[in-house]
């Protein structure tokens, strides 16, 4: 409800009264100044520099409300404020002191946070796509807008990994390849959707925090396990309700009657004949070509993975459930007089087991980790002896964050880190036409340690000096474990 006459809505627009220009601003848009915007009908300030205000984590130390006397007019209690590098700006090359070197006192220790927007030519993203559908062969080229931007790397549990970007695509190929790679990395890092095509494989739309869309079909779930594992997990629930179960899987297809789990339950042979290569009893590799059909194979008719039933062991009327590793596909059959499977409606108790498989499948997501290396020039923005910063990070005296989000710093030389892009505030990544990505990076350490490693002490500013042109944002405590979703 708007009661202020000066900002009364005209249609869906609001009129900003912050200055005499009196802009009409549509929802989602900003006024002429780019400082005030219409956010769902409300006039809000949008400022370039972002300061994160930490909330108390669960079980963390509670800060008493208005501890000690009257409110001092400060919105922010200093120790809970974290200055991010987003919007800090930078120069290229980075030989000047970092744009903001901010000091605040935390637990009586004078802390320094050096914030800068690093320019990363050595950077890329590691993408984990939760799907069993076949995306393409390992090492296949991944393309955006026709340009090579990376490659398919290992298959992991229930997911396929892509490695995109890196210095060779950014600067080693054609100019267009570099530009498209840079755009792709920036969009993925800013949690925007990107369409990728894999040579000899699928087209997949990837967006951090959202399900992948493989060949136009949104993925829903990760598989509960491989076909063999699914047999193991559900054998008891199927026992006595059906004669045979086949869990169709591109990796390991499981067959209940032959599987160790079925043997333990004394499930009799059914005379089933599987295609593919038998690994161990009840476990089959390569029952079909990989694809985007049942269980990551290319089949749409599950019977195509079966040979004829053995008349010596099979009998008419035998029942069989075929199901994929996500429970997304399922069919129920009875053998007729000629031992041919005939599809029938799935009985209710078996349908329940299929739903149980679905229920145990986690939602399929794309996750994007930005990976970048802080080079000598960036480190020089922080200290006049760059290698000391590296050593300080390795010795855990200096804490590295990216846009306030926790990072994993790789062991070994340099400061190469990875960060879950969904943990950074929106629009945290930028680019320069080099091409290279601009990512926020902050180094936090004790003021005395900062002086000791040759910090630019004359550029240290008190936190209060930033407040006038900084936006405060609530963020979960930085103490939470890396990788935990904000």
């Amino acid at each position, binding site marked *: 409800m708007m009661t202020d006459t000066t900002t009364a809505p005209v249609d869906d627009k609001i009129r900003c009264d912050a200055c005499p220009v009196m802009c009409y*601003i549509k929802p989602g848009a900003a*006024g002429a100044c780019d400082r005030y915007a219409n956010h769902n009908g409300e006039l809000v300030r949008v400022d370039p520099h972002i300061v994160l205000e930490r909330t108390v984590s669960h079980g963390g130390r509670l800060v008493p409300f208005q501890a000690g006397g009257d409110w001092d007019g400060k919105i922010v209690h200093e120790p809970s404020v974290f200055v991010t590098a987003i919007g800090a700006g930078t120069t290229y090359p980075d030989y000047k002191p970092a744009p903001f070197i901010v000091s605040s006192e935390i637990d009586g220790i004078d802390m320094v946070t050096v914030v800068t927007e690093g320019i990363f030519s050595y950077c890329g993203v590691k993408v984990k796509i939760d799907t069993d559908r076949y995306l393409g062969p390992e090492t296949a080229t991944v393309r955006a807008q026709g340009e090579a931007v990376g490659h398919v790397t290992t298959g992991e549990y229930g997911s396929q990994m892509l490695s995109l970007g890196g210095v060779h695509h950014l600067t080693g190929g054609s100019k267009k390849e570099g530009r498209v790679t840079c755009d792709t990395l920036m969009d993925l890092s800013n949690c925007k959707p990107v369409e990728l095509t894999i040579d000899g494989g699928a087209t997949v739309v990837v967006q951090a925090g959202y399900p992948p869309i493989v060949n136009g079909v949104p993925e829903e779930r990760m598989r509960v396990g491989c076909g063999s594992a699914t047999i193991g997990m559900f054998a008891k629930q199927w026992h006595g309700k059906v004669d045979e179960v086949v869990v169709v899987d591109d990796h390991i297809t499981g067959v209940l009657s032959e599987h160790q789990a079925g043997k333990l339950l004394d499930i009799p042979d059914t005379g089933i004949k599987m295609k593919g290569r038998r690994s161990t009893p009840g476990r089959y590799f390569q029952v079909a070509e990989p694809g985007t059909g049942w269980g990551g194979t290319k089949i749409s008719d599950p019977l195509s993975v079966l040979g004829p039933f053995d008349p010596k062991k099979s009998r008419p009327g035998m029942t069989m459930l075929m199901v994929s590793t996500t429970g997304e596909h399922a069919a129920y059959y009875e053998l007729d007089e000629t031992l041919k499977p005939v599809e029938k409606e799935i009985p209710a108790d078996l349908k329940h087991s299929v739903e149980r498989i679905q229920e145990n499948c986690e939602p399929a997501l794309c996750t994007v980790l930005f990976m970048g290396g802080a080079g000598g020039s960036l480190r020089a923005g922080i200290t006049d002896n760059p290698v000391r910063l590296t050593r300080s990070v390795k010795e855990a005296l200096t804490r590295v964050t990216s846009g306030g989000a926790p990072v994993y710093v790789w062991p070994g030389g340099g400061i190469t880190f990875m960060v879950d892009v969904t943990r950074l505030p929106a629009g945290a990544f930028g680019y320069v036409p080099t091409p290279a990505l*601009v990512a926020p990076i902050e180094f936090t350490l004790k003021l005395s340690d900062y002086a000791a490693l040759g910090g630019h002490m004359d550029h240290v500013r008190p936190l209060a000096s930033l407040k006038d042109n900084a936006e405060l944002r609530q963020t979960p405590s930085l103490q939470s474990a890396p990788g935990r979703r904000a």
Partner: protein
Amino acid sequence: MTRVPQIALLADGRRLHLQDGPIDLIVEARGSEANVRAAYEAAVRRFTGLLDELCEELLLLRQAADPARCPLQGAVARRMYEAVVPFASEHFITPMAAVAGSVAEEILGVMLQSAPLERAYVNNGGDIALHLADGEHFTVGLAERPDAPALMRTMVVHADDPSRGVATSGRHGRSFSLGIADAVTVLARTASQADATATIIANAVDLPGHPAIARCPAHDLQPDSDLGARLVTRGVGELSTGEIEAALESGAACARKLLAAGLIDGAALRLHGEMITVGARAIEMPNAQALLRGGVTESAMHV
């Protein structure tokens, strides 16, 4: 609510930051301490209330400039009109196309009246008014895109160059563009002229009717935009190398006309990573300074 312009020295203690509504100025002067102080005080005095002055005539400023007569009263408003009127008979243009440069020029003007300075600039969001005493020079960085600033080129403006204004226009800036240029940077005699001509040249970098270019009426985005229902560029998709060259060439042809008419001293036009320069002798390219210093040159290059 009382509105107070923001007046502060930046953290370096040298540069003055003035902000009021959409006007955001970074000011730096060099000279004796007393002169710099006097100049900054003059800038602050002139800045206070300047936005109100402009807003009094805002409705007129948002209307197409009448080539025959100037209905405006304020000094800054009249300067805006003077900067755009050379284009008013051939193009739709409102004095707002020169607002940033005109404000920068006004503030620099009062600073120079108040004290002698070695060099000074007033940077109004990329539209810059320059002052250079004899023997002085400025190095101006050229960014490819205003929304992702990075110095790709530097331009050196010497005291014996005629240019005292620099402005950049394009589709990523705060104001809308009718064209598709990522950025057009212009050197001109004054900041207001640079501002107006950068707009005109940026509008000319275009591929009319191209399906990969998304456009939408300006008033759908900003209800009170001076561009009204005119289609402004919202997105530019894939363009072939030939199309990029054609669009840049269309802008360059416009820039050459303005150069011949003495309205600009040089321009650098950028689109999709390609750049073309027109008469910009001050725009230095790595390893190409010798080629470009002195004399009017024109070059297209891949960077």
